[in-house]
């Protein structure tokens, strides 16, 4: 058989979908042809990656507010989705109740509604819960998008009285914890949870786990190299305990950096279970730019930041620029500069059209205690 003919059937051969004679002919060709063997190896790796993708995809769900959005559009209200959801809440006359009280009332109504087969009407009367409101406020706040460099994909919220605590996951895998004043519907504090240095023995363990897994083994044979590893704040959960908010991780996950063909990839490794969870691309450059409005460059935006006296003072004390980011979509006329001084961070918000600094705020960076519990630094 020629390589061209084999190539067209390799996928079916890989999945045992070829009848006996054809399969044998291909096996014979593969025993003699290095090039086709490499292609089979690559096909197998791709298929494995797709299966990993399918596995993580099976956990993806439509956002919880999607039904409300759709209802609005169908009833022809036609407002922007986030504003629309607040309008739904206002219109529904959502009651501001203590969390447990809401749950009890809803449970009671649910029982009644089931009898009459009108479960949907329970939602229409009360609207989404306080937790959903807290999550919505964070989702709307520009700070979340700027800190996470994009729209959060997931919010988990807990409520105590008039305070909401929302843990949000950003598109780059970082988490922020936001405190929300539910009465005024504003965010009051935000904590950014960052990746940490791995202990030496855990770094060796993570690399060992990776190298023992068949898929990374194939990639390493194909020329990929391990560049290092660090601890990921992943799979975070939030709980309220005695009025105090805690963020914790059920699992310890490391990120092992791999490099190939001028790119970097990140393999997530479960240290406790000894498994490779998935492999995702990591950018070779960081703080990806969205569209630059009015043609400002990185340097110009930093210069705007330097026009502020507080920023000048920070830089005189040794602060350096970690990143510069512009918004996109409805935030396209905003930019932010993240400064770092020791363990502290400041975010400088800039209005691009006016070329002015609108605020300079410190962003407390959380630290991990032993056992991977989270305590805000200043509490």
């Amino acid at each position: 058989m020629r390589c061209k003919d084999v190539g067209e059937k390799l996928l079916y051969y890989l999945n045992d979908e070829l009848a006996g004679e054809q399969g044998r002919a291909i096996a014979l060709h593969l025993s003699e042809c290095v090039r086709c063997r490499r292609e089979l190896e690559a096909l197998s790796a791709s298929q494995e990656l797709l299966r990993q993708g399918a596995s993580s995809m099976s956990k993806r769900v439509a956002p919880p507010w999607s039904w409300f959005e759709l209802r609005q559009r169908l009833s022809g209200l036609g407002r922007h989705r986030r504003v629309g959801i607040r309008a739904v809440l206002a219109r529904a006359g959502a009651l501001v109740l203590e969390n447990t009280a809401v749950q009890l009332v809803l449970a009671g109504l649910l029982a009644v509604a089931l009898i009459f087969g009108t479960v949907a009407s329970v939602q229409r009367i009360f609207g989404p819960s306080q937790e959903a409101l807290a999550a919505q406020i964070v989702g709307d706040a520009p700070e979340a998008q700027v800190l996470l460099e994009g729209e959060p994909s997931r919010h988990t919220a807990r409520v105590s009285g008039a305070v909401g605590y929302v843990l949000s996951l950003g598109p780059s895998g970082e988490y922020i914890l936001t405190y929300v004043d539910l009465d005024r519907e504003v965010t009051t504090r935000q904590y950014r949870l960052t990746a940490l240095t791995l202990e030496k023995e855990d770094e060796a363990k993570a690399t060992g786990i990776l190298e023992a897994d068949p898929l990374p083994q194939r990639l390493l044979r194909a020329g990929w190299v391990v560049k290092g590893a660090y601890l990921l704040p992943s799979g975070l959960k939030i709980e309220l305990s005695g009025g105090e908010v805690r963020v914790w991780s059920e699992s310890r996950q490391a990120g092992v950096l791999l490099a190939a063909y001028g790119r970097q990839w990140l393999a997530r490794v479960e240290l406790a279970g000894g498994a490779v969870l998935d492999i995702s691309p990591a950018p070779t450059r960081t703080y990806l730019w969205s569209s630059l409005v009015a043609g400002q460059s990185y340097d110009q935006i930093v210069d705007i930041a330097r026009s502020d006296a507080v920023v000048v003072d920070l830089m005189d004390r040794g602060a350096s620029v970690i990143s510069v980011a512009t918004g996109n979509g409805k935030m396209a006329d905003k930019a932010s500069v993240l400064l770092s001084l020791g363990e502290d961070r400041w975010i400088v918000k800039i209005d691009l059209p006016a070329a002015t600094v609108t605020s300079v705020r410190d962003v407390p960076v959380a630290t991990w205690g032993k056992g991977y519990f989270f305590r805000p630094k200043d509490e």
Partner: protein
Amino acid sequence: MTKQRGPSDMDVFEALYQRHKDMVFRTALGMLRDESEAQDLLQATFIKVYESRPKFDGDEDAFRRWLHRVTVNLSIDVYRKKKRTGALSLDRAVGKGFQPSVEPAHSRLETRDLALQALDCLDGKHRSVVVLKYFHGLAYDEIARILGIPQGTVKSRLNTAMRTMSARLMDPRTEEVSDAL
């Protein structure tokens, strides 16, 4: 005797929506990769469901197939529009003079699935067979019925798609599959 109030049209539609929304969302995400575009597509798909009020006489399988087809077709429309307006990949954007900061790479994560990233090199019609096969686990004949194409065409597109993806995985310089195929 109290007459029980039956479910309204909207109640029935909501039940349908809740049952199928995640499936539609996952297809949209696989096809478009962008979360907010997938959310828009979820809406567009169900608006189409609401407006066309298809009659499947309780045949859930037929409705699901129809729903898959609508989602895929709408996704391909969006994908084609994006291609025409020239949405830039990051690497090309950097090549045109954008200046990222110099923070070390390991402090920033790109956690989008490698599999979704790899799908980038495929056009709409090749991407759809991969999404239906691997993300929804559908058989060749089912995919053929959904897309309204022969089973042989499904297999051939899948083969081309997988070979392109695997070549690209090993060498990112591999050319993308174009609509010309």
